[in-house]
């Protein structure tokens, strides 16, 4: 076998491809962003000016307000929606590397001195989210703000965009769980912050750091459940506790149980439990 044949074989296989519709949507968004980029520059410049005015006004009147309304700095041409944006008038309460915030309604607060040069909105399809290309005191940064489950706003940033597009940054930052059917750790015996431990899609399991996969049963054969999609049952360990998840690649309402909470002793019993519930 020559090297070419060996390459042909070694590169065969792989998980399922990204759906065509997703590829097209990403392309359309790139077109919209390219079109928007020219327009956003002037809007961002206007926002910077308004931010300066807000700061000076606050200093002059001695007002003790955390934020001051300003022009929408991250607006983009239709069909991207415009967000309400404020600019903070003080650095108090801002973490060292925190340049922008979002509330549950999607309103943005920019740190004092921050201007927005580009925006991706939404950054995560189907989520209240925005990615911002921002500058402050001559430094540039990407920021991603996403409304997670339970009203939690996740924020992440990159100091050196390094040639990446804003869209690529958002893709790199976003947990793949956001687009996956996931099993959630409910935070002990009652309600708590949702923590996705394991997800399943395209024939692969996704786990958060700290999770150990103990074993997997592919296609656990649960009649009339998630019939058109790949399924898997998985036993994981997380923080010295065992969890059982039965996951489908479609929107199949994945099942998640724990011996400690639900009294289900084995992975087989978790499967049987779901089977009897169908």
């Amino acid at each position: 076998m020559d090297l070419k044949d060996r390459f042909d074989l070694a590169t065969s296989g792989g998980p399922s491809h990204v759906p065509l519709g997703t590829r097209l949507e990403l392309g359309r968004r790139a077109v919209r962003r390219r079109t928007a980029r020219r327009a956003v520059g002037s809007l961002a410049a206007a926002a910077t000016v308004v931010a300066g005015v807000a700061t000076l006004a606050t200093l002059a009147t001695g007002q003790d307000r955390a934020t001051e309304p300003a022009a929408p700095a991250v607006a983009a041409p239709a069909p991207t929606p415009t967000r309400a944006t404020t600019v903070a008038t003080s650095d108090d309460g801002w973490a060292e590397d925190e340049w922008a915030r979002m509330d549950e309604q999607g309103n943005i607060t920019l740190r004092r001195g921050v201007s927005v040069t580009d925006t991706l909105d939404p950054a995560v399809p189907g989520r209240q989210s925005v990615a911002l290309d921002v500058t402050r005191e001559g430094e540039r940064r990407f920021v991603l703000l996403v409304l997670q489950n339970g009203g939690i706003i996740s924020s992440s940033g990159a100091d050196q965009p390094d040639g990446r597009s804003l869209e690529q940054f958002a893709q790199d930052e976003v947990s793949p769980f956001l687009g996956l059917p996931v099993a959630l750790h409910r935070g002990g015996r009652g309600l708590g912050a949702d923590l996705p431990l394991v997800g399943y899609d395209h024939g692969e399991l996704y786990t958060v750091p700290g999770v150990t996969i103990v074993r997997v049963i592919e296609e656990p054969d649960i009649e009339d459940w998630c019939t058109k999609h790949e399924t898997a049952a998985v036993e994981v360990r997380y923080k010295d506790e065992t969890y059982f998840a039965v996951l489908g690649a479609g929107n199949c309402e994945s099942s998640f149980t724990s011996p400690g909470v639900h009294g289900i002793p084995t992975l087989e019993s978790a499967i049987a439990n779901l089977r009897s519930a169908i």
Partner: protein
Amino acid sequence: MARHARQHEAAFSDYVVARQDWLRRVAYALCGDWHRADDLVQEALTKLYLAWPRLRDNHDPDAYVRKILVRASIDAHRHRERRVPTVALVADRDVAHRLGMPLEEHDALITALQALPEQQRKVVVLRHWLGLSVRETATELGINEGTVKSHSSRGLAALQLALGEQHAV
């Protein structure tokens, strides 16, 4: 959506469906990870989508996308990766086995390739898998032909060493 845009999108869709597997195989050879390969291909296809209306009949989309792939900073991309750990289920690995290649050999080639410096790896893939000439490879990578030759000989020698005599290249 305008009629032209719809036509472009239909043609783009046809191209993606027909060629995404091949493109990802090239990306996989370059980076050694299916997820990163997916990311690289998506990045390249998005750029192709933007360029599609400008591509004329005498422009080969394969060459356009391949150039984006091989000119990407594969290793830099790898360093900034923040994806959560993943565990591939056995289904994907059955393909190589079905095709008659032992899994160890399947892994060994990709692993050995990833051990090469990035530019050597790209030259080996372009020259010895995709069959580009020295001149074409030099143009594709934006380097001179002498550099292609030296990368090629060193890359092949390193692969041969890594794979051992029984898998001599």
